[in-house]
């Protein structure tokens, strides 16, 4: 495990302990830290941005009543991710909302207009990646999306986010990454090393 990861873990554990003791700013620190992941969990279930915002907020409100029983940062992350995913499913089933078709989801990357030269390469890389990711199955897209926002190796969180058996995450991740590497042009890797 990288030292950065255990440092992060220690900081999260401190925030959690202080938040349990009623320190609002520590709780706010946890919100900053974990909301980006929860956002991806809601959005990966195909909900629109307004609904996803409400769901992520609901997960945090529900946490207030459960904070007492949560002892570790890993447990906290899994708890929040599970509630977010369940809320997302509940809303989706209630409204019979359809997952957006892949071509809609991947219609176009937002175009931020002309970019300075130093950003041009970066933007071109993102576009390559976008095109490559859009060729993957929904399952692979969702899995890689969640993994990209998860500190490794945290399969509990990924399992909770996607309701996927823990044991199938590793092999599926391997297959999805292999497909993505195939779909990326060979110069993607070369450019990236520059």
């Amino acid at each position, binding site marked *: 495990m990288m030292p950065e990861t255990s440092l992060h873990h220690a900081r999260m554990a401190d925030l959690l302990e202080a938040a349990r003791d009623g320190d609002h700013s520590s709780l706010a620190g946890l919100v900053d830290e974990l*909301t980006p992941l929860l*956002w991806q969990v809601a959005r990966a279930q195909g909900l629109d941005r307004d609904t996803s*915002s409400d769901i992520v907020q609901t997960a945090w409100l529900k946490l207030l*009543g459960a904070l007492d029983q949560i002892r570790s940062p890993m447990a906290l992350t899994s708890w929040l991710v599970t509630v977010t995913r369940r809320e997302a499913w509940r809303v989706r089933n209630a409204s019979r909302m359809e997952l957006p078709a892949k071509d809609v989801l991947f219609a176009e990357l937002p175009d931020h207009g002309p970019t300075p030269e130093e950003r041009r390469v970066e933007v071109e890389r993102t576009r390559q990646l976008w095109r490559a990711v859009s060729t993957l199955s929904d399952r692979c897209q969702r899995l890689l999306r969640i993994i990209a926002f998860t500190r490794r190796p945290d399969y509990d969180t990924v399992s909770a986010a996607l309701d996927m058996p823990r044991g199938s995450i590793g092999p599926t991740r391997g297959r999805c990454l292999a497909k993505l590497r195939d779909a990326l042009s060979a110069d993607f890797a070369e450019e990236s090393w520059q």
Partner: protein
Amino acid sequence: MTSPDEPLDELDHMILAGVGDMWRQADPVPGDLLDRIKFAIDLENVDLEVMRLTEMAQPAAARGDEQSRLITFDSETVTIMVSIRQNPDGTIRVDGWLTPAGRHPIELRTASGTATTVSDEDGRFVLDPVCSGLVQLIVRPSGTTRTVTTPSISL
């Protein structure tokens, strides 16, 4: 801890970092979401029942009516329907109807303070005037220690 899969190599790590950056650019967390969450969870009572926003209708304005929004919040034990209307002076009027009907203390938290009222026997209540911005509606059902709260919404 061992995993059955192949360890990731450096290119995998780089691709995953790229996927993360891609989603951060294409689908960023809404700018106001962190503030909305922090505002909503700044509550003392943890015996909470969290209401869900279940319906938001924006009826077509007819005959020069001011625009009004109808919102429904639901939880296991309480339903609140609110109508939000703008007053001519720019402040906001909130008309609510709460079930189960009865006299229940109601609070509307805003950035600048908390307005309180009590619903009538039919469960109706009015908060007027309210300033625009983030608000959160809280009900403390009579005869319980519970706090029923909505998510924060922007008026």
